[in-house]
């Protein structure tokens, strides 16, 4: 294995390590990676205070 191979493989190992760390972090923090592109969440306006018109049984 020459120097060029080692340099290339180091890059690949680094890339895979970053991916695994990212995956572990996302899994442990309950983060869905697809939210980066499309989230079902919207930004609420105002505040949550006020009368609740319905009380759960």
């Amino acid at each position, binding site marked *: 294995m020459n120097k060029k*191979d080692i340099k290339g493989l180091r*890059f690949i190992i680094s890339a*895979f390590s970053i991916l*695994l760390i990212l995956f572990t972090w996302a899994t442990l923090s309950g983060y*869905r990676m697809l939210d980066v592109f499309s989230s079902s969440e919207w930004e609420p306006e105002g505040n949550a205070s006020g009368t609740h*018109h319905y009380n*759960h049984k």
Partner: protein
Amino acid sequence: MAGTDLPIQPLMQECSECKTSFKRYTHNQSRFFGCSVCGCWFHIKPDGTLTRDRKVMKKTIIRKDPFQPGRPITFGEVKYIMISRAEKADKSAMQYKWREYGLFHPLHGYAWLSEYDGHWVLLKETIISPKKNSSTEVVFDAKPFHLFQKYKSATTSAAGEFHSNVLNESVSYFEYIAPPFLLSCESGKSYTKWFYGESLFPEDVAKAAGINKSELPSPSGVGAVQVSKSNFSHRSLVILSAIAIGLLIAIHLGTIANMEEREVVAMNETISDSLMGTTLASPSFVLPDKNANLEFSYYSNVSNNWAEAEILLVNDNTNEMRGLSLGAEYYSGYDDEGSWSEGDLNTNKLLSSVGPGTYHLNVKQTKGGNGGGNNFSLNVRYDVPIDSNFYIMLLIMTLFPAISWLRQRQFEKSRWMNSDYSPFNTWEDE
């Protein structure tokens, strides 16, 4: 002696036509001489005098070629001297031309530097003949070599010193490849020689000759024994990818096993039309001391109608809110082709990374016209596995070797495009 100046002084030779002086490094081993200045071709007599071969017309000398006889060129520890330069062509297709440069060292003997379309190979004669496996494969040095090309060559120009009358002879070649190695079988009227060579990058040749790479012809296409400039081997990448995917699966299964996956909200409500659009509040629930997701599952029994719930997740301590909408729509009917239906009564959505605290939901149900939508159920589960994360990572990790394989395959296809014996022809062109 390797790496030092030549141990034997060259003979001085004068072109009898243009009177230019040259050095003759191989002494009496050379029997023919081409003047690189006037292009005349000579037979060298044993006493060293030149007799011009007038049957041979003056050949075009490419003066811009930096490789002219007399140039030192160092490969490894061996400092060769360039003794000849010949341009050859495929006899059956004269537009395919390549150049061969003869190299000489008194102790290390001869070597040949060959250039075609900017791709370089350094060859040395081998006395060991390869073992023939089939009509298109030979084995040499325990490696299989595949037939790449066979052709007859004609020399179109020559300068420097030569053992034979290269301008008047036709040579047959069989070339076998195992990149980056090349085996070339050269057959003349009364001899057969095998040459073993290895591909060189242009920068290696430029460095060996002590010139700038820009002075060399730019490579075109993929050379017969050119190796990819990729920074790693495909096999290493496949092994690394397999290890990474193994770790990914282990982490995925390990984290799934430790997830709580419990229900924190279960609402099943019926709202009259007059109360439609009002806000319903769920009971409060406590999320423990870590960030995790919430999975919302919504159902409404609509028929040819739609219903939607706007949901606010409210932190009771900080009053911070996060919102999302879930809907159900379902339409059906009959047309010329029979019954049809579209839409879904269920929706699932995920809220990422919800922090610890006490929360409740504010839910506002709305709907279209008649056709249900007064009933809905909403279930919220805490800390569920996110399979999409796993599949995204699996896809990315598989893409690395897949792209590498495709690139390697394209590279090999380009290489074999110059061959009549391509392994890609038989099954790909069908």
